[in-house]
């Protein structure tokens, strides 16, 4: 091998960069998000829409609600299960999911999402 030292340094740099996620993790406990349902949600047993839909589409649902309320004053949502909900972030979602910290933030912190909604909307008071 010619220029062996340079080649090996190059290979080491390449491997260190490539395996960044593996060595970055070492010694850090991976915390898995654990969104806790508040009492009211537990009693209701189901969300506005089926769970998987909420998991993947809740941001889109909120976006739709926002547009429809603010632009067309259309304040009621007919869910696929036939129930009617008042389209509101603070009054509906946060009524059942009364702790932002224990619910929404669990997932959001895990993926580093910081919704800017709370710049204006008021988050529920956390007890404790």
């Amino acid at each position, binding site marked *: 091998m*010619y220029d062996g030292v340079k080649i090996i340094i190059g290979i080491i740099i390449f491997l260190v960069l490539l395996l960044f996620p*593996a060595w970055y993790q070492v010694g850090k406990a991976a915390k898995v998000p654990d969104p806790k349902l508040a009492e009211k949600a537990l009693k209701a047993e189901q969300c506005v829409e089926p769970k998987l839909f909420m998991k993947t589409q809740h941001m889109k649902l909120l976006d739709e609600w926002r547009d429809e309320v603010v632009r067309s004053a259309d304040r009621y949502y007919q869910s696929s299960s036939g129930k009617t909900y008042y389209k509101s972030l603070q009054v509906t979602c946060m009524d059942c999911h009364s702790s932002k910290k224990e619910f929404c933030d669990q997932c959001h912190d895990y993926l580093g999402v910081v919704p800017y909604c709370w710049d204006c909307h008021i988050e529920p008071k956390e007890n404790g």
Partner: protein
Amino acid sequence: MNFILGILFSIVVVSILVFIPWIGVWAWDLRFVFGVIVPYAAIAIFIMGILYRVIGWARSPVPFRIPTTAGQQKSLAWIKPNRIDNPSNAFGVIIRMAFEVLLFRSLFRNTSLEFRQGNRITYEWEKWLWVAALAFHYSFLVVVLRHLRFFTEPIPAFVHWIENLDGFLEMGIAPFSGFSLPGILISGFVLLAALTYLFLRRLYISQTRYISLPADYFPLFLIIGIATTGVLMRYMGAFMQFIFGADWFSVPVVNVKELAMGLVTFHPVIPEDIGTIFYIHLFLVSILLAYFPFSKLMHMGGIFLSPTRNLSNNNRMVRHVNPWDYPVKTHTYEEYEDEFREKMVEAGLPVEKISEESAEDKTGSSEEAEKE
């Protein structure tokens, strides 16, 4: 190969690659195979393959510097040398290499030869390839770095910076509501646009079309496939729901992160609820990784080992010994004469050095030789 055949062949191969995980996961539920075994195998092939190729290159000698450079070589003190384009030391080489790797400088020099004024040849400014290549490589890099949010916990700050910069539009270019949250990330679309251009360019320019092979189309289509499945997952779920009443596109990214973290911490898990489209995305990425070392994509490593880029032009300052030189068996004239002197003298042939014995014995004959 006819270019239509080349394109068809590549499309068929990529389609088969899409169908394999589709059927494997959707019909046979082979999630562990496509979510754990295939990605691990792919990364192993990627690393071994790259080492194999790089070491292969390192074993080939480059005896001389190849000064195919666009600049004045260092010579006399009063002639200004071009330190970067024709470097004479390691510093210049590093700068030249950085320009090449980060800005694709040799592509920037691309010109196209055209007849503009009658029969006169002109070299026209041709920067589209350079622009598209930069757009493609940088958006690819940004997309990959942003994906680190799936592979790191806690997520390092630079990933957030990239994400915020990339998502600065926040929303709003959507024709229907629900498209814009979570926010639009520009790089994914730039990636697709650049790939489309690079493909169309191969078709549009007749010379490029003529030299293009499946080995050129296949990686393009493969990466288009990866980017398309990614975009479908992130943005098209609500649209799918709207058209078909069922959402096969959205994936719960929290579960995806659990899978990804399982892979990097070597505790693989297969969380529920992740749709087939994610496994297609992951499978295509795995194929890309495994294909990488054995294809033209290896230019990622090759650029650093290009002799025209990574060698300083010091042919005149340093003696470069050919590494395959071995001691050649020589037989100089002096040695020849030493061996045959007596016989030469006997035969009356002229000799340069006269040995003592022969000088004494046959003075006459050597005098005769001198006279001649």
